[in-house]
């Protein structure tokens, strides 16, 4: 997963001692809700509940779940949402991060602290007034309306400022001597140098907004804008009257893309979370 540097002690085969047993037991406990959901999704409700290992495997739950909600639309909405949110974040945070890293001007530090405050003034907490603002802008029930409050991300600005600050001044000066404009310097020198930061931020952003729920719940009101998480919550609500196997199938379906992406690109995801956390 992460860059695994084994301890420098002489290499020995891993032993199955008490630690290993504890670690593996905890791992099985931790993954079990997911395993049970998979079990339930592939059996009918009574087979799922009884844990009868001889219960017949079936895909019926998936068929029922798939037919019960406009999943393709939800998938599309979520994909559009994470794409435009990320695009907005990359552009805005690059510009702002560049300003904070390389343009000294009076008042900059005060503005920077103001920006950092947004790390604590969570969009979730301001949900009522943000909703009023979105309504005023005429963006209620639009996907842009879901993404917009997150685009000027203080976190992204902070990360890119750090990354840009680490670029040696000489590189920039050399480019300037060659006649590069500020925009050119940004595009040719700073952005390429910050590539790992961009990648990490992008992965974390996609994972976050793919999973986001409360704000989309408030802003969306129709099938055409509702993301997967909101669709899944409507689907899984007890009053919708679907059984445990069908709920499991729907849940598995909707988490599958991100889960697969995670299993394939595990190392990148973990390093991304680390990088944005620790830098």
């Amino acid at each position, binding site marked *: 997963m*992460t860059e695994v540097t*084994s*301890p420098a002690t002489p290499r020995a085969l*891993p*032993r*199955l*001692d008490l630690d290993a047993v*504890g*670690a*593996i037991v*905890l*791992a099985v406990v*931790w*993954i079990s*809700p*997911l395993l*049970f959901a998979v079990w339930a999704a592939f059996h009918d409700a009574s087979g799922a509940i009884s844990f009868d290992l001889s219960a017949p495997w079936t895909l019926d739950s998936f068929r029922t779940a798939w037919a019960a909600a406009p999943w393709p639309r939800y998938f599309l909405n979520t994909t559009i949402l994470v794409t435009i949110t990320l695009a907005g974040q990359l552009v*805005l945070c690059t510009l*702002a991060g*560049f*300003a904070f890293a390389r*343009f*000294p*001007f009076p008042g900059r530090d005060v*503005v920077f602290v103001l920006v950092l405050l*947004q790390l*604590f*003034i*969570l969009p*979730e*907490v*301001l*949900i*009522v*007034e*943000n*909703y009023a603002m979105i309504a005023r802008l005429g963006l209620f029930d639009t996907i842009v309306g879901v993404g*917009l*409050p997150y*685009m*000027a991300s203080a976190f992204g600005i902070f990360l890119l400022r750090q990354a840009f600050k680490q670029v040696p001044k000489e590189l920039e000066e050399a480019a300037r001597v060659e006649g590069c404009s*500020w925009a050119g310097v940004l595009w040719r020198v700073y952005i390429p140098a910050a590539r790992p930061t961009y990648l990490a931020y992008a992965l974390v952003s996609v994972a976050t907004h793919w*999973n986001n729920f*409360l704000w989309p719940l*408030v802003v969306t009101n129709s099938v055409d804008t509702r993301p997967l*998480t909101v669709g*899944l919550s409507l689907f*899984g609500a007890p009053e919708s009257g679907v059984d*445990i196997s069908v709920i*499991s199938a*729907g*849940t598995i379906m909707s*988490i599958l893309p*991100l*889960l697969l992406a995670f299993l394939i690109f*595990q190392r990148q995801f973990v390093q991304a*979370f*680390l990088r944005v*956390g*620790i830098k």
Partner: protein
Amino acid sequence: MSTSATITQRRHALYGWMLLFPSLVLLSLFAFIPTGATVWASLFTRGTSRRPSEFAGLDTYAHLTSDPVFWKVVTNNLLYAGVSIPLSIGIALGMALWANARIPARGFVRTAYFTPTMLPMIAAANLWLFFYTPGIGVIDQITGLFGFGPVNWLGQPDTALWAVIAVTVWKEAGFFMIFYLAALQTIPPELREAATIEGASRWTYTRRVLLPLLMPTTLFVLINALINSVKLIDHLFILTKGGPNNASKLILYWIWEMAFAYFDRPHAAAMTVFVLAVLGIVAAVQFRLIDRRAHYR
């Protein structure tokens, strides 16, 4: 100062503000103005079609603090934070120590710990619903083996909040583990060798060497966990809806309910101001840490 230097300075300032402009507009629209508007809204009465809202000063706050539900929600959130934060950090540390040791199936172990982090909380809640179902749920089936009767985990006031806390810990621990794991890998193995030579027990080594070295990570994780203890409520929508009888209602859910189910904007605003004040204190502490700790640079 020469004129050309002044001109350069002015140009820099102009560029700086131009580059910042789009972000500042959005931050104003969705952070600064809403913050002010929230404070403002909390000072007015709730308007109805017959009676327009009027200035009420701090009346809403007085109402709020005399409302037993307010105290219930605050107590719930304190309990939620007070239990889930130490528990998830403690488990995260244990996970990291194990995931960093040379054990068989280490890849599986790490993946298993971290996977919940990648799931939407809504999906996590759906999975756990299955565990908590009275009588037929996994937990009751297991406790049933030991002769315990079925328990309506989500449906009774004594257990609902704890059931919600369990889901939070499950979701958060693997995330925090990552930071501990990274920190552990930067600790030179010579320290352990030295401790072993000195005859220090494993517990002494952990307490005297590891934990102090992990302190910056713990602070970072703690700040994150504090913020999350306000933010993480998605599972309430599936598991309990804050019930029964407000037993598992947390502050942000209450704000949502006030604003979007009961359309009581002043009370939602007053509660929001309260949360912002608490987060402001966390922010102040955090900024002092940023000044002090190279860890954050």
